[in-house]
Every structure is written in structure tokens, then in C-alpha cells.
């Protein structure tokens, strides 16, 4: 098993040993593709393909389940705004609302397409981030021409978010043990309790920043200092082909949507 940013993944997974730059390009490409495509049929096919990839690439699919509550919030936001605040022409008008909008058969389909778009982004991002290691962020961004300091800062930011969450739970538990009840009182009273929680949390954050800056200084990380790298990643001709495909895919999709009219809503075979 290999320890990635967020979980343990089988070391036999082909995605683990993928060039870090390809992981980052894939992450961007899958999100851009989902953003560009509007056709529900194409989005559904993409979603099923991504779910199949979880199995094929031996990445635990159960991790997606953790986002079901978050997905449910977004799904209800999409449904709510599409049903109550849109006027998408269709063959049948199911409901006319007093403020001028209406619900047609296409409204429901459009809402479903947007839910699929969101799910493709979520499942695709989870697949790539599940195999992302600390060094992948640094080496991947460096390979794409981002300066080392900026790449390292992004990696540290991702790591710091987890540390900040750990600190939050520690401070909250300590306050609960001293008698603070976060679940009682009015909204403002609760907010005031959280404000009191934020003070030690911020003090911890400042201390961590100080420690981190000393460590970085001791390790010789600087803006203009030249660096040597312990790992060497070779892209190879196959890697270059994949990289070009990942860059071209969103561009071609955008061209196909804007000039050829494919990938638009409702798209084939529903048009």
C-alpha cells in the first residue's frame, strides 16, 4: 500500500506511478470537460466510465461515499433553482409558476444534466486526488513550469488544511471538557462560542506558521536558491501523448460545442 495525501492505495494501481504532471493535467482536464459538456447522455457515459476506472485502477470507490451529504446539498440546490427559477422550453409544460417561470419536461432533464456535471467533477477529482502524493504536487507543478517555491507552497497549503482541522477538533474537545456547550443557545450565542474557539485556534495557527518558516529557512528553501531533486520522473513518449491528449481534450470539446453544436443540451440522442 502507498500512502497518498488522503488515503492508502494499492501500490499495484497504475495511477500511483503515473507522472505527477499527468495527474495534475488529468485533474484539470476532467473538471474542464465536465464544465464544457452539457449533453446528459455524454455526461452519464463519462460518469459511468469514471466509476469503472475506480475499479480498473484499484482505487477504493467507497471514498466517494463520504461526499454523499455534500452531493445531496448541491443536488437539492440545482433542483430547487431549476424548478423554481428557470424557463427552459420543452414539449410539455408541467407547471406554470406565478412569477413567470415554468417547469417543462426539459427543465427536469436540464437539472439532471447539471447534477451529472457536478457528479462527474466530484468523482473525477476524487479519483485523481486519491492517488496524489505530497511529492506529486511539488514535482507535478514543477514539471509544468511552476517555480519550486510556488509548487511547495501549494503542497504545504494542502497539508496545512488537515493540520488546521486537527487543531480545531483539539480546541473544541478541550472547550467541551471545560463545560462549553456548542449545541445550546441562540444562533448569536453559538456564534460567540465559536468566536471564542477561534482565538486559541488562530494563536496555534500563528505558532505553526512561525515553526514552519524556521524549518523552511533551516532547510534552505528560498525564492532564488537553486535546488537539486531526489526523485527523477521521466515522461517518455507515451506520457507526452497522454499529456497532449489531456490538453487537447477540453479544447476540442469546446470547439465541438461552440462551432459544431455537439455536446450541447439536450444533445444526441434526445434532440
Amino acid at each position, binding site marked *: 500500500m502507498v500512502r497518498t*495525501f*488522503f*488515503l492508502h492505495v494499492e501500490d499495484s494501481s497504475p495511477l500511483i506511478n503515473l507522472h505527477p504532471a499527468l495527474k495534475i493535467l488529468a485533474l*484539470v482536464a476532467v*473538471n*474542464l470537460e465536465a*464544465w464544457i459538456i452539457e449533453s446528459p447522455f455524454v455526461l452519464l457515459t463519462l460518469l459511468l466510465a469514471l466509476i469503472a476506472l475506480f475499479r480498473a485502477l484499484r482505487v477504493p470507490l467507497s*471514498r*466517494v461515499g*463520504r*461526499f454523499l451529504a*455534500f452531493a445531496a446539498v*448541491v443536488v437539492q*440546490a*440545482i433542483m*430547487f*433553482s*431549476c424548478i*423554481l*427559477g*428557470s424557463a427552459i422550453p420543452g414539449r410539455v409544460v408541467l407547471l406554470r409558476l406565478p*412569477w413567470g*417561470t415554468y417547469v417543462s419536461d426539459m427543465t427536469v432533464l436540464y437539472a439532471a444534466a*447539471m447534477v451529472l*456535471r*457536478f457528479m462527474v*467533477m*466530484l468523482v473525477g*477529482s*476524487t479519483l485523481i*486526488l*486519491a492517488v496524489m502524493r505530497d511529492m506529486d504536487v511539488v514535482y507535478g507543478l514543477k514539471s509544468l513550469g511552476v517555480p519550486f517555491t510556488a509548487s511547495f507552497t501549494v503542497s504545504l497549503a*494542502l497539508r496545512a*488544511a*488537515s493540520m488546521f*482541522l486537527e487543531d480545531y477538533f483539539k480546541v473544541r474537545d478541550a472547550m467541551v471538557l471545560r463545560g462549553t456547550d456548542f449545541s445550546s443557545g441562540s444562533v*448569536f450565542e453559538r*456564534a*460567540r462560542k*465559536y*468566536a*471564542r474557539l*477561534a*482565538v486559541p485556534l*488562530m*494563536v496555534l495557527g*500563528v505558532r505553526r*506558521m*512561525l515553526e514552519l*518558516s524556521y524549518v523552511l529557512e533551516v532547510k534552505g528553501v528560498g525564492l532564488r536558491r537553486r535546488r537539486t531533486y531526489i526523485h527523477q520522473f521521466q515522461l517518455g513518449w507515451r506520457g507526452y501523448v497522454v499529456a497532449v491528449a489531456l490538453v487537447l481534450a477540453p479544447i476540442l470539446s469546446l470547439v465541438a460545442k461552440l462551432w459544431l453544436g455537439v455536446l450541447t443540451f439536450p444533445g444526441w440522442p434526445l434532440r
Partner: protein
Amino acid sequence: MGYFFGYTLHVWLDGGLGDLIAPLVCLLIFKLTKADPELRTRRDKVVWALAVPISSLVCGLWVHTVHLLFSIITWPFWYVGVLTYFIGDSLAVFTVGTPLLKTLTGYVKQSPMYIWRRG
């Protein structure tokens, strides 16, 4: 299990950049007006009282435009979203941010990270 696991482009543009924009707007207003974040004088408090709604509005505009671009909401809900975000976020920042500024500004100024201006 990290916070950024399952981080989509939409969430990054929305939460990542949106939450960065709001404090930057506040910082800009404080810099332009030369106000003290410790909120000692009446003038500092007035600047804070104006900076919070402005930054909440800018952040709300950004967040809901991103939602709109990703088709999470439709046009009529953009207005509703911006308005509710403006009210809700301003209240939350006033409640949580004010004691934080008063108690932590001194602490941050005493830390070695703080750069004192010469002269």
C-alpha cells in the same frame, strides 16, 4: 481524510478563491484608510463596519457568479443568493471577526513574523 479530497474546480473557484477575496478586500480598505485592525478608535470601528459589508458583497457576487457559471443556480436565484450571502456573511464576520481582531492583532504584532515599518 483531508479537507481537499474531492476538491472540484467549482469548489476551488468558489471556496478557495472566494474566501481569499473577502479578507483581501478588507485588507485593502484598511490599508487605504490607514485604519488600525485593533479597532481602538471610533474611526477604526467605522472603517471595520463599512469594510465587512463591502467585502461580504464582493465575495457574495463572486461565489454566486461561479455557482451560476457552473449551473448550480439559475439567474433568479443569483439575486437571492447574493442578498442572503451579503446579510448572513456580514453578520457572521461581525460576530466572529470583531473579537478576533481585538484579541489577536496585538499577539500577531508581537510575533517575529510581523514586519514593523521604519521611521
